[in-house]
């Protein structure tokens, strides 16, 4: 049977300078408090190298890990999973893994791979901008790091949605901005020079880059002539939506919170570790899961404010214990297997 | 009545590891005196002077300047106390202008820099020693000698309106100068007597006799004699320095048969602004001396033959073959060796041990294929240390820790070490060598000749040329102004040659 003192919760974040990751840590802390199992936080400082070496180091610390990992690059996943297996632990990977690397093939210690579908994130943004522009106009895209699956799927979703439902919208240019606000701002400036008033909409693969881009457009005095959509709903972004900055410049966001991801991830791994759930017998969509991503707009954002209350993480975890990791609002399971890319 | 005492040393000592460079030296210098400091290489001259100028701190002993006890923690203290120095090795900022290098009194400051003042003072200081250079040129653009003049100017340009008598220290300032500049320097030193006291180091004893009032002889760190110049002869000094052994006669050289195939043929060689239509041939066993005042272009010629500088016109032939696209590497492979005048900059790797410096060019059986046999290299080095009487006799020391003259010996050994060397280009090979060492080195040069090497010599002194050379080529303003075949002419005098030089 399951002895708490033999185990340690581990949450690995890509950095600690991004609200999503910080929220990840919150969730992990809350989970640790709930389960009464100590927590180790691993900070990858944006480097696969640091990520892997740090995780290996934690594994060497004796206790068996119940782990939740945000991989820096997809390619980190196999190494980490192997190591966890050797350490007799259980791990859930979030966001990035090699496309052909499946928990079911690897074994029970790779409990699950989980993510919010990047494609639907991209589609959310495309819908929001497309509608806001009345289906006509030019948009520029600011993807994240080029070889990140997350960025690639979001981009694919955005482009597909535009192609299928908004023929009148023209994608003018696309400048990868490495999730970096500065670079987002810089590329935005250059694009403003390049296309001037032809730009009616800006889509960024995450809010960090959007924050930079909006600043550039504001400086250029164009903020109220352009519509923005992105992913992640950073607190700052929420403020801008509330305040209707730049004549409601932000028209679309996606709603998901880091604390939810880490809670779900850790809890799934915990169920496996404590023997309450046998990964081997789970259906595929519970091994490789896609969780609901809500499209958020200035019209409906109020419904989500409750999830940012200080006690929200605790509440969410209580809910998890009742309904399990795959049915918790606002992010129930919506699909499984590899996220299929629109063609 | 006695002139006031400017410098008073009592029991000054300084040791480096197990070498005691200076041993309890006591010395007094009065106002207006010019002291000649002589001694073999490694005797401790520079070390003593470094102590006086605050570069090194003595292990024991006391120092008084103008009656005030001093202990210099930095060269700055020395400058403030009125001690100006020309170090044996050049110490100028090559990336700064002449004026800035002279602006030593303000070295301690970090505030506003008044260029007008700095430049004017520089012009004045240079005028003082009869040199005219643009104060705003980068030192790196000056020839070696011009740099030396800048150093001297810096030493003598210490604060005029200071109280007490300044002490000027000159560590082998003439080693790199030709007769003409030496004359300028002598005149300057005489002027200095009015306002200052001078310590003057040189290995050229006749110079010492001419310039100094008193001669102090140093041997292995101790003062062995301290006499009025009027009371000593060159022979006395030599005996005191060498410790008994008297001066040996010049090495007589057995000539190789005439008409051997020329090792070097230079024909109508020219480089704009440096030298023009230079022609001469050097056969195995011959010594060709290039004499001339500074800026006569002779060093440039030597460097061109070695491939270190380009030439615009004319041809160079090596062992009968005319060379094309000449480069240092090709020159070395063809058996040429070049001993540069700027030892410190071009001759030695200061951080390397003597062994590794000597092994730079040729490893002999110290190498097999791409691999090195370190013990063999050590043996070779040891051999040279013994032949050239390098002191101290420890091959593992970094070169920087040897005295100037001993460094010179090691750099020379580097080239003599290679049996494949059949042309020696020697620029001031005796620079900074004491009389004894000079003879040893000359002997080595002669030996190289007898073994079939051709030598192109840029001598320190005309005497040296007269002693060594088979042919003397006199250069003026980059051109040849006279030739003397020493095998045919005798009774050629220094004056004759100086006449062709100026």
């Amino acid at each position: 049977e399951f002895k708490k003192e033999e185990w340690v919760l581990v949450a690995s974040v890509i950095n600690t300078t991004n609200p999503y990751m910080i929220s990840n840590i919150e969730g992990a802390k809350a989970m640790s408090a709930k389960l009464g199992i100590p927590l180790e936080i691993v900070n990858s400082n944006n480097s696969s190298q640091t990520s892997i070496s740090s995780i290996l180091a934690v594994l060497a610390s004796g206790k068996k890990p119940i782990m939740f990992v945000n991989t820096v690059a997809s390619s980190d996943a196999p190494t980490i999973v192997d190591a966890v297996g050797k350490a007799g632990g259980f791990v859930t990977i979030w966001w990035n893994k090699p496309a052909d690397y499946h928990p079911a093939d690897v074994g029970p210690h790779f409990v699950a791979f989980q993510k919010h579908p990047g494609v639907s994130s991209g589609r959310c943004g495309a819908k929001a901008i497309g509608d806001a522009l009345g289906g006509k106009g030019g948009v520029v895209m600011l993807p994240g790091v080029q070889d990140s699956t997350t960025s690639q799927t979001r981009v694919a979703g955005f482009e597909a949605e535009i192609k299928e439902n908004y023929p009148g919208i023209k994608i003018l240019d696309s400048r990868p901005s490495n999730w970096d606000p500065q670079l987002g701002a810089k590329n935005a400036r250059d694009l403003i020079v390049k296309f001037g008033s032809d730009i009616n909409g800006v889509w960024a693969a995450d809010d960090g880059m959007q924050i930079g881009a909006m600043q550039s457009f504001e400086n250029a005095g164009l903020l109220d002539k352009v519509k923005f959509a992105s992913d992640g709903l950073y607190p700052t972004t929420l403020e801008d939506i509330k305040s209707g900055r730049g004549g409601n410049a932000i028209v679309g966001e996606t709603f998901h919170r880091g604390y939810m991801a880490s809670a779900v991830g850790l809890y799934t791994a915990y169920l496996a570790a404590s023997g309450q759930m046998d990964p081997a017998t789970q259906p595929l969509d519970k091994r490789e899961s896609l969780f609901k991503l809500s499209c958020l707009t200035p019209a409906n954002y109020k419904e989500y404010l409750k999830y940012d209350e200080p006690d929200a993480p605790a509440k969410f975890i209580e809910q998890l214990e009742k309904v399990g990791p795959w049915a918790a609002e606002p992010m129930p399971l919506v699909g499984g297997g590899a996220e299929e890319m629109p063609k | 009545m006695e002139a006031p005492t400017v410098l008073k040393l009592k029991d000054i000592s300084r040791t480096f590891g197990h070498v005691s460079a200076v041993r309890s030296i006591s010395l007094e210098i009065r106002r207006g005196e010019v002291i000649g400091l002589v001694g073999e290489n490694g005797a401790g001259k520079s070390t003593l002077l470094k102590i006086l100028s605050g570069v090194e701190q003595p292990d024991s002993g006391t120092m008084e300047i103008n009656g005030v006890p001093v202990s210099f923690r930095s060269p700055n203290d020395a400058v403030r106390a009125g001690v100006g120095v020309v170090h044996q090795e050049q110490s100028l900022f090559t990336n700064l202008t002449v004026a800035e290098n002279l602006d030593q009194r303000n070295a301690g400051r970090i505030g506003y820099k008044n260029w007008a003042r700095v430049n004017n003072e520089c012009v004045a200081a240079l005028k003082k020693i009869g040199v005219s250079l643009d104060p705003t040129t980068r030192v790196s653009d000056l020839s070696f000698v011009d740099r030396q003049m800048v150093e001297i100017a810096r030493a003598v340009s210490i604060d005029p309106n200071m109280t007490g008598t300044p002490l000027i220290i000159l560590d082998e300032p003439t080693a790199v100068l030709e007769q003409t500049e030496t004359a300028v320097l002598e005149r300057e030193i005489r002027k200095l007597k009015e306002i200052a006291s001078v310590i003057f180091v040189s290995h050229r004893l006749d110079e010492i006799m001419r310039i100094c009032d008193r001669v102090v002889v140093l041997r292995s760190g101790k003062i062995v004699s301290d006499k009025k110049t009027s009371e000593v002869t060159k022979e006395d000094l030599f005996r005191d320095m060498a410790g008994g052994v008297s001066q040996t006669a010049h090495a007589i050289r057995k000539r190789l048969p005439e008409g051997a195939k020329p090792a070097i043929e230079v024909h109508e060689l020219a480089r704009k602004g440096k030298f023009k239509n230079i022609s001469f041939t050097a056969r195995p066993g011959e010594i060709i001396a290039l004499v001339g005042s500074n800026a006569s272009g002779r060093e440039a010629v030597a460097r061109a033959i070695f491939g270190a500088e380009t030439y615009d016109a004319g041809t160079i032939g090596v062992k009968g073959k005319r060379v094309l696209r000449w480069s240092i590497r090709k020159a070395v492979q063809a058996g040429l060796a070049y001993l540069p005048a700027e030892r410190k900059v071009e001759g030695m790797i200061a951080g390397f041990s003597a062994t590794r410096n000597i092994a730079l060019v040729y490893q002999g059986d110290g190498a097999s294929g791409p691999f090195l046999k370190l013990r063999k290299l050590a043996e070779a080095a040891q051999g040279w240390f013994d032949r050239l009487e390098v002191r101290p006799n420890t091959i593992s020391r970094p070169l920087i820790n040897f005295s100037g003259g001993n460094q010179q010996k090691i750099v020379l050994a580097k080239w003599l070490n290679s049996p494949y060397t059949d042309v020696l280009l020697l620029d001031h090979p005796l620079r900074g060598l004491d009389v004894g060492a000079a003879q040893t080195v000359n002997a080595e040069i002669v030996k190289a000749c007898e073994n079939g090497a051709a030598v192109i010599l840029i001598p320190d002194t005309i005497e040296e040329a007269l002693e060594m050379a088979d042919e003397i080529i006199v250069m003026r303003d980059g051109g040849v102004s006279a030739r003397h075949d020493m095998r045919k002419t005798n009774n050629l005098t220094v004056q004759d040659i100086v006449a062709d030089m100026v």
Partner: protein
Amino acid sequence: MQFVLPKEWKGPAALIASIVVLAIVFTFLNPRFGSLENFRNILFQVAVPLIIIVGTTLVIQLGSIDLSVQGIMGAAGMAWILLSANTRLETDYGIWAWVIGIGIGLTLGLLAGALHSLIKVPSFVVTLGTWYIGLGIGIILYGDAMLPSLKSDVLMAWPTKLTLGLPNAFWLAAVILGAGVLLSRYTHFGRGVLAIGNSETIASNTGMPVHTIKIIAFTLAGGLSALAGILATMQLGAGSPDLGSGQLFTVIPAAVIGGTALSGGEGGIMRSAVGVFLLIMLNNGLVLAGVNPAYQSGVFGAILIAAIVAVARPDRGILKIEK
């Protein structure tokens, strides 16, 4: 000026030439490149690196190197924004925000300078250390609360606002640059830096205050990085611990391209500044020319090499040594 550093403008001449060439090519590829708007855009972008490079150049002239730039930018930027009117804290300490922000930079610079100069630790490692420390400070200040953004529209608008047709951000940089040039040409400090870079032994033998000069240089560099961090924060309108990212590999190459040899003793602030323009312009031009992002880094590298080769040509000689 000429007579102070005769060769001063030789390198830059070639550099400026190659900048002009590039500019022409880019304008040909996309006329908007030559537009006044883009000109202002470039001036806006060079502002931050221009401020940094004054310090960078001084340190490199010493023959040392300062890696701490990005760390200090992050720390100072975060401190500044948290002490100015921002969306996270109610407090607004006005001028003190500046004092403390820049103070952090000066302190870290002083620390690095002192350790390097007095305890003889390689500057490369010390400043790597202060880099991490700065980053650490930034991260701690960032904490886990929400990302702070500026409240005052005045401050946010200031960098872009035009004065005499040019953005304020650039004017600020220009002033710093001017001051830097004067400092390095008309003070004993500035010349001392070059002297030390040429030969530290001789410098101390002639009694220069070597330690003082080195420490001042590093402290100055730290302070300027901090100022740059504050300006960057203003430009972004929000604080972030790694808002300096990418700057180090803009300014050091810029300095080197400008002819400031890493071995010390050479080059000048103006020349480094020209280097900054080259790099920023190159980047901006590639975007405007619409080079496929996938090819961008490759092309950037190739052009960079081409440009520097072109620049290297003039003062090349058998005897010249490049490290």
